[in-house]
């Protein structure tokens, strides 16, 4: 069976697909923010928490980082209704991604907290900084600079991870690709274009984050 590439039939759908890419970025952003909050709380609990909270956080982190995000979302979407909790596909995806991100971000932020050298804090203390001033002027800037690259990287990975939302009917980039494929049957062209959009979007996001990181935090990041 021969197949000739006909991109002409797929070009008109570019705006739809691009809009889907934007949605992918947004979903990833929402999940990232939620995950960041969980991660901060989790990292704080691991570093400063009592004997009861630490194992709980560890179990959460270990469980969510050793199971597939797809199956986590499947569980939320198909299993929770049995317990009376009905989530829309969008919410199930968002919740699943948030919980998943929270686990990875707990790990990343814990490493960041632990990177603060006692010497820096003591130097600030000796110079007369109060506890709050130490946190604001010494600890936070250092942690922000150390964390910016891995956090940025996690966001980019999550943007790629939104692709599985298509399986649940969410109309982000991959979801729309499935739709366009169903309408035009030009599968190779559609998914090539989709792939290209993911590459462009992640490159742009990486570049933007790298520039922001260098300017705001003096954090050095590679683009390629």
């Amino acid at each position: 069976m021969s197949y000739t590439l006909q991109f002409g039939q797929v070009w008109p759908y570019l705006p739809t697909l691009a809009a889907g890419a934007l949605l992918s970025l947004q979903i990833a952003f929402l999940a990232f923010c939620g995950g960041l909050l969980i991660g901060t709380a989790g990292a704080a609990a691991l570093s400063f928490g009592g004997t009861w909270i630490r194992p709980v956080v560890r179990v959460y982190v270990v469980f969510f980082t050793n199971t597939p995000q797809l199956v986590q979302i499947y569980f939320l979407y198909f299993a929770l209704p049995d317990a009376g909790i009905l989530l829309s596909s969008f919410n199930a995806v968002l919740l699943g991604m948030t919980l998943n991100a929270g686990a990875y971000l707990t790990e990343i932020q814990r490493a960041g907290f632990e990177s603060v050298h006692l010497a820096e804090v003591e130097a600030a203390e000796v110079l007369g900084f109060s506890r709050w001033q130490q946190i604001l002027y010494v600890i936070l800037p250092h942690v922000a600079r150390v964390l910016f690259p891995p956090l940025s990287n996690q966001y980019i990975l999550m943007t790629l991870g939104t692709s599985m939302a298509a399986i649940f009917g969410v109309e982000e980039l991959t979801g729309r690709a499935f739709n366009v494929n169903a309408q035009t049957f030009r599968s190779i062209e559609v998914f090539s274009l989709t792939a290209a959009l993911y590459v462009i979007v992640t490159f742009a996001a990486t570049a933007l984050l790298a520039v922001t990181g260098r300017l705001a935090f003096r954090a050095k990041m590679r683009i390629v």
Partner: protein
Amino acid sequence: MWQRLASELPDFFGYYNVIFLAKAALATIALSFIGSLTGAVIGFGAAVVRLTQARALATLRWATVLFTELFRRIPFLVTLMLVFFVFQLSGFDLPLFVIALIAVFLIATAYLAEIIRAGLESVHRNQWDAAAAMNFSLPETIRYIVLPQAWRVILPPAFGFFILFIKDTALASQIGVIELTYAGKVLNNKGFSAALVFGALLVIYFLISYPLALLGVRLEAWLAASRTR
């Protein structure tokens, strides 16, 4: 709900189901393992190509850079769809497992090429210089001096990639490969409650991934300790 789960358990763990799930789990591990292994071989070649300086190889170098940069920025699901349709629409009749394997292979090659390249470049410039000054060619330098020192730096992240990808293989269920997630959906369709099925899947994935992750940590510690040799 819990009563229903409890009543389903004995049927769920019936003989045929267990065999079915075990085979699916094997397929899951095989997808990641074979894909990662073949990806490591070709990825090694790609890493070496990127280290060459000959003008004649410039096109190959650019192609390699393009390949590694692209396939690390495309979601696995999209790569899977592309491979699937390329083979389906060009008439090749490959088994679904092989199609998924090819998709894993492409992504593994891209990621492992970067891991290996970073490992090779982690060997101090001095070693490369000394070898060059003694007329070692690039392949000879890598074979006798760089790789024997670099493999300790390469192995932990490479192993980590293999473990990571076990989770991503779940997406292969979308094209009908009978791996763990697909097996779960089959059982769910048969009538077992979703909570039981997907809960069990999560546990099985965990039981595969976590011990391997712990092994990886052990491996990294052991390699770092013996780094001086």
